[in-house]
């Protein structure tokens, strides 16, 4: 005969092991399972599909936005590939012609890719259309402008194009207003708090007003630690930023600067060691 334990824990465990279920427990449980299953199945299916589609869509949109924005520009090339195009649309031509409908001209060119600015001036009876493009090649843009204007300008009118490339080199005064910066550093380095304090001191030593510092350490799971520092500063240029990095004394692998200039956000990457392969996109 089995001896009953005097230890309440052992007795409790034994009671759990011997626990009898109430009559019809199984039937009630399965009735609940069937009913709940039928009730939630269609909803769950729709929810799951919708969630998957939403996530896939979000990933595609993010990739479309982030990949070109982050990686299309090469370090040190230029800040922007911006150029202006003057389109001269003369009144008259080989045959008597009238001035085109200016509204139609503006509408015709608004859909051209990369257009960021359009101005139509009347000069000595001729129309002068000035457009600014970003991230486009003038050779590609020219035929698109001519094709767009073909429907709204007299076929005998002469359209002349004059382009002016506007390049803004990295560094110096071109980056007069760095609004956001991001610095990624490798495994070695001080603690987050030490790093934040050091960066604040470094920026202050350069006479820069630091509006935001946010240091975040992320453990990648395979022993690698990635540290990200978000910096907001007003009045910083790249040279000053590099001075700050030097003052901070941290081993920087890469800098990304998001700058706001002429109302546009541009991203520049620079690899301190000159080793572009070190950070894979």
């Amino acid at each position: 005969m089995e001896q009953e334990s005097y230890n309440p824990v052992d007795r409790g465990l034994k009671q759990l092991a011997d626990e009898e279920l109430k009559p019809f427990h199984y039937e009630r449980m399965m009735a609940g399972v069937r009913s709940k299953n039928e009730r939630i199945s269609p909803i769950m299916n729709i929810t799951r599909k919708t969630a998957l589609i939403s996530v896939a869509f979000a990933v595609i949109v993010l990739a479309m936005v982030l990949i070109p924005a982050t990686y299309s520009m090469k370090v040190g090339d230029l800040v922007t590939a911006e150029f202006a195009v003057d389109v001269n649309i003369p009144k008259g031509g080989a045959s008597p012609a009238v001035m085109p409908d200016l509204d139609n001209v503006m509408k015709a060119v608004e859909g051209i890719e990369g257009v960021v600015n359009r101005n139509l001036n009347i000069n000595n009876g001729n129309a002068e259309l000035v457009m600014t493009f970003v991230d486009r090649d003038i050779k590609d843009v020219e035929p698109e402008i001519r094709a767009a204007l073909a429907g709204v300008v007299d076929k005998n009118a002469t359209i002349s194009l004059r382009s002016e490339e506007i390049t803004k080199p990295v560094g110096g005064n071109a980056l007069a207003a760095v609004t956001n910066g991001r610095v990624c550093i490798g495994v070695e380095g001080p603690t987050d708090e030490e790093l934040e304090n050091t960066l604040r001191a470094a920026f202050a030593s350069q006479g820069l007003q630091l509006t935001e510092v946010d240091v975040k350490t992320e453990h990648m799971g395979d022993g690698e630690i990635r540290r990200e520092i978000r910096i907001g500063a007003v009045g910083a240029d790249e040279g000053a930023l590099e001075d700050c990095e030097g003052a901070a004394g941290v081993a920087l692998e890469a800098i990304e600067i998001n700058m706001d200039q002429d109302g546009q956000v541009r991203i520049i990457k620079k690899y301190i060691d000159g080793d572009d392969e070190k950070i894979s996109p």
Partner: protein
Amino acid sequence: MDFEQLLKACYNDVVRYSRAMAGSAVDGDDLLQDALIRAWKGFPRLNDPDRFKFWLLKIIKNTHFSRSRLQWAKRMFGLEAAGDLPSTDVLPYEEKELVRMALKRLPEAQREALILFEVLNMSIAEVAMQQKITNSAAKSRLARGRIKLREAYQALSNMEARHGARVVQPG
């Protein structure tokens, strides 16, 4: 064999397991119901019907973790009162209820090991297989779990004595 035939064969064990994992009979039955819905949907993907019981226990455990995370999130955002704080309602005393509550205070792995061994009467080898650890690791886990269970039980008993009433879980 179909789902229900296999389930009936191990039904008592899975109910005991669910209740011990959840910390009470009511929560355990809720947990089991959710787990059975998942299991029913996943049943066509079960290759080896002989492993049905172990497969189902794993689903119950995963469901329990999901529910625990959800409850934790709800508590974090103030949507639900803390569920594991003992109240002092007077209910008929049962050692098994105190043990169930004490089990809930153990780390998940130790709790599961004790339930599999003590409540479901599995062998050390079966516990080790279910937890994907070695036999000796299972033995140490059980030994550590027993010590912690006794401590947790004692703490609950003392709390009960202080309140002069039975300690039960709300809900």
